């Protein structure tokens, strides 16, 4: 059975210039122990669709779907209190800006222990022991000392490690990583990706990697969903996608990578891909 199942998800926002459809009929499935990458450029609705699935969008957003289930349970009809019990425990999320996603007023130790207290109800000593274990697991040196640090005393990479530690604190079944390395340097990105892949393999959890970087996709994913302007353009396993992309959009995206440049000029997406049918449907 699929862990997360989304069918025909539509998200609309009310804006000053009328309703805006950010996600337009997206369907996907994530299985246990699988790494799914959602790749797309800005405006493709890749983050919005995941936030919608987790119920984290502001009230101006209208979310509808034919099916939106986690582990067989319907997320849409579930009361908000039920949903909160699942989110943070069985589904965890990490974000692009690690320093901004941590509360600057509290120590990182307090923040990780809070999650353990709320979701697992551990007592004080057990919480501290588990927090140290988690920091060790994500590769933070001197874990016992670092628990007392504030987010601003740590580097971006370290903060992202803390975020990952908080995310895996309750052994989630599904981890959603929204551009987890975009704000980080390449060498740090490599470390964080390696860490995520190791944790994913060790815990056998499902991992959704939202990214715009084809390199990150190539280095992590099992299966890939390509989104463009709120629509799913293609879904394929990673090798097929890079070797033999079906949709013109994916082909154009791959050709625009500077690594693949053959001559003096880079082929641009607009030369290879005409999006009139998508443009017409999205409006």
């Amino acid at each position, binding site marked *: 059975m699929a862990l997360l199942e989304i069918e025909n998800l539509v998200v609309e*926002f009310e*804006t*000053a*210039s009328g309703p*805006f459809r*950010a996600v337009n009929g997206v369907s996907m499935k994530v299985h246990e122990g699988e790494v799914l990458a959602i790749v797309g450029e*800005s*405006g*493709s*609705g890749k*983050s*919005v669709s995941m936030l919608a699935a987790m119920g984290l969008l*502001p009230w*101006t957003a209208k979310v509808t779907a034919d099916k939106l289930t986690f582990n067989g349970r319907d997320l849409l009809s579930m009361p908000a209190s039920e949903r909160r019990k699942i989110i943070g425990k069985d589904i965890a999320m990490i974000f692009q800006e690690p320093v901004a996603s941590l509360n600057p007023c509290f120590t990182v130790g307090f923040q990780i222990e809070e999650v353990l207290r709320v979701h697992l109800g551990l007592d004080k000593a057990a919480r501290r022991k588990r927090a140290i274990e988690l920091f060790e697991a994500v590769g933070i040196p001197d874990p016992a000392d670092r628990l007392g640090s504030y987010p601003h005393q740590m580097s971006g990479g370290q903060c992202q490690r803390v975020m990952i530690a908080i995310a895996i604190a309750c052994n989630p079944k599904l981890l959603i990583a929204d551009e987890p390395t975009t704000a980080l340097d390449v060498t740090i990105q490599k470390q964080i990706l390696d860490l995520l892949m190791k944790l994913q393999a060790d815990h056998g959890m499902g991992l959704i990697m939202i990214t715009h970087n084809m390199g990150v996709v190539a280095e992590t994913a099992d299966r890939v969903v390509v989104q463009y*302007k709120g629509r799913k353009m293609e879904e394929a396993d990673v090798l097929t996608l890079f070797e033999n992309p079906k949709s013109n959009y994916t082909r154009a995206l791959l050709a625009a990578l500077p690594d693949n440049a053959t001559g003096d000029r880079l082929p641009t997406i607009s030369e290879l891909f005409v999006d009139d049918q998508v443009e017409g449907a999205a409006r």
Partner: protein
Amino acid sequence: MSQAAATSAVSTDPSRRARLAEFWYYFSENRGAVIGLVFFIFLVLLAIFAPLIAPHDPTQQYRDAVLVPPVWQEGGRADFLLGTDAVGRDMLSRLIFGTQFSLFVGVIVTTLSLVVGVVFGVIAGYFRGWVDTAIMRVMDIILAFPSLLLALVLVAILGPGLVNAMIAISLVYQPHFVRLARAAVMSEKTRDYVVAAKVAGAGHARLMFKTILPNCMAPLIVQATLSFSSAILDAAALGFLGMGAQPPTPEWGTMLAEAREFIQSKWWVVTLPGVAILITVLAINLMGDGLRDALDPKLKRS
């Protein structure tokens, strides 16, 4: 990300109108603000056309009609709709002419403190260092006094009168504008477009007033509307204390002061100017809230 798509949708229409439409969209979401705006426009019209609208001369004393109650009360007379005061002047006409003084006070005080405050604030925020310290310490000293007390002291030194009261009040309001402008300039100063203007060769004056200042106006406009209402209130308070407009000027605060002795017996002489002050200040404050909703990007919902 929805922002990128929205801008591409907007980029086909002419700019200023779209911006205005967006402003109106956020402003009109706040119903109180629209009511405030309507009432404010009504007041402005009243002030401009006061000589045409008012049924009597505001200083004309009708000896035969002293302390006549409003028309709906027993003893009221149809030619004095809201009654007359202790020397037989028509209340309605005095209230209508009073809007002229109140709006005049608001406009002058706000412009004066806005202009001077912005100049000092921009200079302090732009140059920092000792210039900043000097300006801000002076502002801290002004802020350390209770505002009405300081205004009173200043009027006592300058001599009572509406003009002196306005100067005193604008001086008291100065620090708020200086602080706001300084904070806004400090946050804008490091933005890339300022550096880009510097690379283009722009000098200090151009950077301060042409490049940075237009981007700092939103909080200042909001503060200006709120000061507008406080200025009216403070001018009325000074008038009440006998330090503002002098009789027989039909200024609302002065009217209140003259009516003090009738507070128990003749309600309309006291209540009506008070109500006029109340709803004017309320309307402008409501409008200021709406402006903040529309201009402050932090409160904007995506």
